């Protein structure tokens, strides 16, 4: 099982602060699954978001995620 936590704009777009997905999904597959589950608005946010897998940025979005990881979805914004 993969735990997904949504933050800021991702949380608003998903309408929830977390989701779960089966282990073995890659980030690319996860994005498709979560978009179909939560809608296109989340899909748009996911295109620009950073994904932290157990706290580390993930570069290979086609790699299968191991069981038990937490994926934090962080939309960037630069306002100051």
């Amino acid at each position: 099982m993969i735990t997904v936590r949504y933050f800021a704009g991702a949380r608003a777009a998903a309408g929830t602060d977390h989701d779960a997905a089966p282990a073995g999904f890659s980030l690319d597959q996860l994005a498709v699954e979560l978009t179909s589950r939560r809608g296109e608005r989340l899909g748009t946010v996911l295109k620009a978001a950073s994904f932290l897998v157990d706290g580390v940025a993930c570069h290979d979005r086609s790699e299968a995620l191991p069981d038990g990881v937490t994926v934090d979805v962080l939309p960037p914004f630069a306002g100051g």
Partner: protein
Amino acid sequence: MSLPPLVAPAAELTVDEIRRYSRHLIIPDVGVDGQKRLKNAKVLCVGAGGLGSPALMYLAAAGVGTLGIVDFDTVDESNLQRQIIHGQSDIGRPKAESAAASVREINPYVNVVIHNTALDRDNVKEIFSQYDLIVDGTDNFATRYMVNDAAVLLGKPYVWGSIYRFDGQASVFWAEHGPCYRCLYPEPPPPGMVPSCAEGGVLGVLCASIGSIQVTEAIKLITGIGEPLVGGLTVYDALEMTYRKIKVRKDPACALCGENPTVTDLLEDYEDFCGAVSPEAEEAAVDSTITARELKDWQDSGKSIFLVDVREPAEYEIVRIPGATLIPKGDILSGEALARLPQDRQIVLHCKSGVRSAEALAAVKAAGFKDAVHVQGGVLSWIKQIDPSLPAY
């Protein structure tokens, strides 16, 4: 993880300073030693805007001995909803100067250094090297990546904060001890996908929520008290009224601070790195961009045009170009609204400043409206060139 104090203590506090800082001095963890470290500290605030306002004011009040302020902008009326270091009489004045005056009024013992200039690749390292710590309160991705890269290359810690609407994020980036900004956000977002505060808005008081976290972390780093937010990201949600702390670890593959860095000096062009508009939008805009003046001429001559405002409804409520129909960019990009565009009239798109309309233009042209154009500079240019009586925002 606690860290040793960043700054050595100053030799002494004067009697006046002891009176002024007494509420700090009687906290055992701060004490005279901590206050002397603050006195000896040199902190640079990048941007005297939303985050820079509370940050500079509290850093000054706390007794940070040297405060640098870098900002090239001037105070605009639309800043005053959140940039509380400036006031009504400062409109039109350079922000760095206006902020310096407020700092001096708050605490005359602070040595203020004004950098009334835009930070760029040629001056950033030289300016940063004069300080112990940097507070990042800039408002765009290009400057944020440059601030990060310069800080990492110089080995300086910096306190980062970012805001949008009701959301805020803050962290301490210090590559020597933890992750950097690129570890958290390896790539800038695709151009046009993330609205700025100027486009999407920001709750004014959010600046205080995040700016005060930045100052808290700055004081902790300088004096060596508590657990600094190194390796942690605080995410604030004003609507839920929650602060969540996320662990962020150093990315072994970070292009800047990772094991095999590919970025070993400042980039040539950070604007280019972050891309003002996407390549598709840039291509679509070539030979398909008109000025506000040309739009006015077209309207006056009775040319058959269909003017589309691709901004959000709230922006349309504030100010609009006469004759414009509101169709937000998202509805155009998703294809949903294409059916509303007439085939027999010239399509003219505009937004606030010309970035979003360029993105929409690419989609409209791809859908077959080959002669569609967009307005350079958007409604802001219209206000400037055609009707200055309208409110700019």
